[in-house]
């Protein structure tokens, strides 16, 4: 009994704590996710900023180049091809960041550099071969083919496959950027059609381009608000430039990596920052503290409940012990009273044998009969209580010996005859269990006393009760049927519960502890049988079954 309360108490303490921990963990997770998301969007915005800066640079560059090319085209229009050459030469040689200028006529013939290429120009043609391949498609007014599958595999075409003109420069447009990787450097060509359908192009010097990009990107300042590191990487992942006060660990992964916009689409920006742990640990600390506090409170409550429960149990136990003790104390005196009352009854019968007696109210025999029956009743009650106590302590034992069922029935019926007669309850007997079997006659008598006692208590005056017995093999059966008020269907099982009495006008004022049927069934079961209530249209019908018990060696 003791351990039974522990489990619910434990559950009272642990379940809320578990739920709380779960909630706290979920909270922390969602906080962390929200924080991470916030950080991600901040970082993404920062990277977008950098991308915008670079985009601005390219716009300015484009404008600058457009201006120069427009001017050169204008000069070209006003002069011959041979006269233009020195002008183009000078532009090629003197413009910072211009590696090679080229001009194609409307018919795709190369106007500049002229047919005779010097070594530098030859090198240019070699490394920009992929661009020339792409360009023929442009001239045929077809939309730009995606990386062609049938190009021979070589470093060149691989580079070509990687680079393409971006969405901003559909080859149907007037100008665009063409980017490709050559060795370790990223090369860029700005190309453009002019009014006369000529194609002008400028290959930018890769080192100078990078230097200009670095110039527009931020330097590292000591008082950066958030310690972070941004890295600009080329298509191979090589770091070209980095800024920010934070030095990432050697294998640290970036918080965010995003590719740049065209024309630097193959380049990317990485953002490194120390991992966010501070907020997390704070949140954990708080939730841990909360859980501990709640746990303590619940623990205290559980302990308090447990103590109270234990006290209640102890009190209950004390009460039971008291009752048992009292019953024990009562048993011996009561036995004496009964014994001497019965002795007196016998004596009186002998003494008053000669005198006629009617058994009316007022005669000494009647008085004695009352004393005897009441003391018998008390005995039965005390027996029930003691049996119940014994059952609770698992100390009920049977003492089998050879006996006859019908004889035991007879004894019990005899005991109740005067009581039943007083209530004018008629009893019919059909006894067919004359076999001698091994059983505990005291226990059987106790059961019968309980059943008959109920009949006497609850059956109305003038009622009928039938008692039948039979045997089948090792088992003996007794059926007791009365025509009293009966037991409602829904109370069928409950009447066997300890201390339970039907709450009705019937039981009001009738004495009883509610133990009779309880202990009777228990004893019947102990006897290898059972006591059950059978459904009847009228009254109550109890069926008792007992088995023959194995003999106990004396």
């Amino acid at each position, binding site marked *: 009994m003791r351990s039974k309360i522990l489990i619910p108490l434990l559950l009272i303490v642990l379940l809320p704590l578990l739920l709380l921990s779960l909630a706290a963990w979920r909270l922390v997770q969602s906080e962390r996710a929200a924080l991470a998301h916030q950080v991600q969007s901040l970082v993404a915005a920062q990277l977008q900023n950098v991308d915008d800066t670079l985009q601005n640079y390219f716009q300015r560059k484009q404008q600058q180049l457009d201006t120069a090319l427009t001017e050169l085209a204008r000069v070209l229009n006003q002069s011959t091809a041979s006269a233009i050459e020195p002008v183009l030469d000078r532009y090629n040689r003197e413009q910072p960041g211009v590696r090679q200028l080229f001009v194609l006529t409307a018919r795709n013939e190369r106007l500049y550099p002229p047919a005779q290429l010097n070594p530098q120009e030859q090198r240019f043609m070699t490394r920009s071969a992929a661009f020339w391949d792409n360009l023929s498609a442009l001239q045929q007014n077809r939309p730009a083919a995606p990386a062609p599958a049938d190009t021979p595999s070589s470093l060149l075409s691989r580079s070509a496959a990687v680079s393409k003109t971006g969405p901003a420069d559909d080859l149907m447009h007037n100008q665009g950027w063409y980017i490709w990787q050559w060795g370790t450097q990223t090369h860029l060509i700005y190309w453009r059609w002019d009014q006369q359908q000529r194609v002008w192009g400028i290959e930018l010097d890769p*080192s*100078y381009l990078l230097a200009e990009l*670095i110039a527009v990107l931020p330097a*590292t300042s000591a008082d950066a608000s958030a310690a972070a590191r941004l890295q600009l990487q080329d298509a191979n992942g090589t*770091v070209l*430039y980095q*800024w920010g006060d934070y030095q990432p660990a050697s294998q640290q992964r970036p918080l965010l990596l995003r590719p740049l916009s065209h024309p630097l689409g193959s380049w990317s920006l990485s953002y490194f920052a120390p991992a966010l742990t501070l907020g997390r640990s704070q949140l954990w600390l708080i939730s841990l503290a909360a859980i501990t506090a709640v746990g303590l409170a619940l623990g205290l409550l559980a302990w308090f409940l447990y103590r109270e429960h234990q006290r209640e149990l102890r009190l209950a136990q004390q009460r039971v012990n008291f009752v048992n003790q009292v019953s024990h104390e009562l048993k011996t005196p009561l036995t004496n009273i009964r014994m001497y009352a019965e002795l007196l009854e016998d004596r009186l019968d002998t003494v008053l044998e000669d005198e006629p007696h009617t058994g009316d109210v007022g005669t000494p025999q009647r008085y004695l009969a009352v004393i005897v029956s009441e003391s018998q009743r008390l005995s039965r009650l005390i027996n029930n209580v003691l049996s119940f106590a014994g059952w609770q302590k698992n100390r009920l034992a049977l003492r089998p010996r050879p006996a006859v069922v019908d004889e035991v029935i007879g004894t019990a019926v005899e005991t109740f005859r005067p009581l039943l007669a007083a209530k004018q309850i008629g009893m019919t007997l059909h006894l067919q269990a004359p076999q001698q079997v091994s059983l505990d006659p005291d226990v059987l008598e106790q059961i019968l006393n309980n059943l008959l006692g109920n009949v006497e208590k609850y059956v109305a005056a003038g009622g009928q009760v039938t008692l039948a017995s039979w045997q089948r093999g090792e088992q003996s059966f007794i059926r007791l049927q009365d025509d009293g008020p009966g037991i409602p269907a829904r109370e069928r099982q409950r009447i066997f519960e300890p201390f339970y009495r039907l709450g009705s006008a019937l039981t009001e004022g009738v004495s009883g502890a509610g133990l009779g049927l309880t202990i009777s069934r228990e004893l019947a079961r102990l006897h290898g049988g059972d006591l059950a209530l059978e459904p009847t249209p009228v009254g109550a019908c109890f069926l008792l079954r007992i088995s023959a018990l194995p003999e106990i060696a004396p």
Partner: protein
Amino acid sequence: MQTTTERCYWRVLTGVVLALGLTGVSQARQDNPRIGLEVAVGTPVMLAGHTQKAYLKVGLIGFELTQDVPHTPANVAIVLDKSGSMQGEKIARARDAASLAISKLGRDDIAAIVSYDNVVRVDMPATRVSDKDEFRRRINAIAANGNTALFAGVSKGAHEVRKFLDRNRVNRVILLSDGLANVGPSSPFELGQLGAALARESISVSTIGLGLGYNEDLMTQLAGMSDGNHAFAENADDLARIFTAEFGDVLSVIAQDVQIRIRCADGVRPLRVLGRESTIDGQDVIVNLHQIYGEQEKFVVLEIEVAAAEANEQRDLAWVDVGYQNTITRQADQLRGSVSVAFSGSATAVKESADDEVMTDTVSQIANEMSKRALELRDEGRVEEAQQQLKESAAYLRSNAAEYRSDKLEQLGAEFEQDADALEDSADWNRTRKALKKKQYSLEKQQRY
């Protein structure tokens, strides 16, 4: 008839007028100083009858910068390496040298301080040098730790210089590095490309290599392509001297963006320019120099092939046009020159006519080329061949020293002998190589220090 007094009077008057005139002339010269142009050929008289090589020298001599004329205002960025290897004495001396350099500048000058390790910091953006204490304070705040983002450092330095880019200012980035570039582009080729591109913008990069850990090919390429100076500071103590010399150069610039165009006459074929980058387009040769310093000569030697001619013929060889920005007068100046040659049947006449100065310069350039070839051989591990080459060039120098009566060539010959011996020592090769590269560079560019 003039009396004695009248004669006296006239004398005095003439004297006064002359004196005034002279001062006037010299005043004019002061008001409009120009660079001196000398175009000469090594052999003014050549042997008739065969095609032969000759050497053309175009020399530019900077005029004197007098005290009362303010120097060309500077627009410099000092880019310091603050990588981990600079910790300790090196960064301390670098800081001191930079502060020393700043102290030489004035209100008209603009300076920026940039430092780099993994990342680049602009310690002082391009500002007028009026508050030198502020400069000093920021220089002293530079602490060493990290890797070497050399390319980025130069880029940011150039960015600072660009803010006040002016044809009439000395626009220069001064780079100090003690180690190998390992963040960003780090090959001599890429840095050379950057140098060339910056030169077109009129920005030159001077490089100072500190210690034995830097890449001298990279540093010389960067400086060479942008026509800056290159120096090898073996110890941190050398930095003060080198920075002083560098800034001495910066403050003595008198001309920038010099373009020399040599138009060869018919029958003259330009072969190559010794020691400098050039563009040869048919009969035209174009060489760009970044700056000319006061009282210093920079020259260009062009190797030409002259077609055979008859004896006693006179031929024009070439016409030279030089354009430059005079930073003192703030004007664009043009210089013109030409040179011709005579032919003779007599070998003695040819020999006697030789222009010693031109030939000295030519020989020293050729010997320098041989020295560079020797370095390449040594890099390939062919030590003996390299030594042979240097010894040959030493002998070449010596013989020519005798012929052209040149002490300079004699001295150079002796140095080359020593260099040949130094090639053998593999333990000290790193130091020797750096020193050798620096010497070759200085000779090529006519660097003053």
